[in-house]
């Protein structure tokens, strides 16, 4: 009853993509997610995606999510929500809890798609209520229709910082500034142009010095940075803000992968520590595959395709289908991923990924 060909842990775009592909090719597939609704970060992404048609260009994140859910349901993917996985044991045993209940499943292959965590930034006052991650703001506004404040300052001009600022404006909030330590904007020019048009100023070579407030955030002190990223004395100024959003990057949620004994590597470009994987998303543990932000922080579209690749790869491993047929499908996805990883930002990720794939890591199998 609790035995599956493929168990996917994490129901974001990567996990959904993996589950859909595995099930489509006939694998008995289980998808586990700790939330009461699947989709991971996808349902908070209310902007249109760009890229090619296969990558849902022009479609909004939540619509992509809905379509994937429908597909998963029609393919009889077994979906268990509110279920947090806490362990993976030899024999492919996956242990989880749902409320107070402990659950146990057995999987021939396991695909980890646990996503990422947001990075934090420490400065005096950074623990005050009102200092939140950009993701928290995005979740509250786009999923729950609640603005966590009225006047925002956003730290970080990467895509998350830019998009969240724009979405805060859309929801009727005031965004006083986006603060960026680097002398240039780190996100896509399209997103930057959009927030600028919406009247948000982007302060380059600036950082947060301090957050001030009696019990909750009332003011943010900013200052200028010199070319060595050191604060320049005397350049401090204060903004009256009730919410400070940190959009300073993501790091892969590697806990389960580490627990599984997957060989971990460090990749600054892809967010830090992450499980090593080969070109088919297989890790150093023969039973375990990875996909999405866990396998290096990128974007929703790459996460989805990596998930699909991992799903096919699992089917291939299990020998459920003609090897060559699956291989051809996998090649198509690999080509798409290469296309997605183009341009000044994508190229760096492509190189980092290639570097990882070409590492020689001994394959083990203690699970």
């Amino acid at each position, binding site marked *: 009853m609790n035995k599956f060909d493929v168990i996917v842990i994490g129901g974001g775009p990567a996990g959904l993509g993996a589950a859909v592909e595995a099930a489509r090719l006939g694998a008995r597939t289980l998808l586990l997610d700790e939330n009461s609704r699947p989709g991971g970060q996808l349902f908070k992404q209310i902007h249109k995606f760009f890229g090619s048609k296969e990558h849902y260009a022009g479609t909004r994140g939540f619509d992509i999510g809905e379509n994937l859910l429908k597909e998963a349901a029609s393919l009889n993917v077994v979906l268990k929500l509110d279920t947090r996985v806490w362990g993976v044991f030899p024999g492919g045993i996956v242990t989880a809890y749902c409320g107070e209940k402990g659950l146990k499943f057995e999987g021939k292959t396991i695909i980890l798609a646990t996503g990422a965590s947001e990075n934090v930034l420490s400065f005096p006052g950074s623990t005050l*209520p009102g200092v939140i991650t950009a993701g*928290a703001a995005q979740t*509250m506004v786009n999923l729950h*229709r609640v603005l966590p404040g009225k006047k925002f300052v956003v730290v970080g001009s990467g895509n998350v910082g830019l998009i969240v600022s724009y979405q805060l404006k859309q*929801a009727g909030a005031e965004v006083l500034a986006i603060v960026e330590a680097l002398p240039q904007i780190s996100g896509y020019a399209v997103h930057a142009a959009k927030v600028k048009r919406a009247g948000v100023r982007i302060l380059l070579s600036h950082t947060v010095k301090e957050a001030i407030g009696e019990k909750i955030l009332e003011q943010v002190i900013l200052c200028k940075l010199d070319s060595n990223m050191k604060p320049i004395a005397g350049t401090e100024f204060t903004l009256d803000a009730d919410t400070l959003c940190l959009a300073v990057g993501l790091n892969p949620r590697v806990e389960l992968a580490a627990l599984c004994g997957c060989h971990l590597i460090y990749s600054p470009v892809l967010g830090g520590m992450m499980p090593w994987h080969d070109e088919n998303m297989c890790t150093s543990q023969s039973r375990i595959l990875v996909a999405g932000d866990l396998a290096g922080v990128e974007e929703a579209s790459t996460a989805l395709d990596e998930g699909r690749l991992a799903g096919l790869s699992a089917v291939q491993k299990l020998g459920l289908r003609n090897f060559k047929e699956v291989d051809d499908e996998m090649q198509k996805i690999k080509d798409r991923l290469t296309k997605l990883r183009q341009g000044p930002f994508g190229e760096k990720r492509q190189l980092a990924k290639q570097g990882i794939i070409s590492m020689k890591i001994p394959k083990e199998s203690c699970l």
Partner: protein
Amino acid sequence: MAHIEEHPILGTMEKKKYVTVKVDGREIQGIEGEPIAAALLANGIKIFRFTHKFNEPRGLFCGIGQCTDCVMEVDGVPNVRTCVTPIREGMEIKTQHGFGKESTYE
């Protein structure tokens, strides 16, 4: 602050069922099933707990159940992550002090 009724992308908010809960004895309303934290923020409540050692205020931080900064006492149970716990009619929610009322660490 209340909920965003009209949104350029999300559209008009559907009619929702409101529930009444008590926060430190005071009655507030929330939308059934939304995270407790969302209801609190919509009511302008930002301090969810005070830390054990230094009695410092904490509130929402990650919003997706990862950091535990948002924990409160809900129906007598301490350390409930309010950002991922749906709100239900009649809940008794309390600002948590330290490890919470039922903790044996105090």
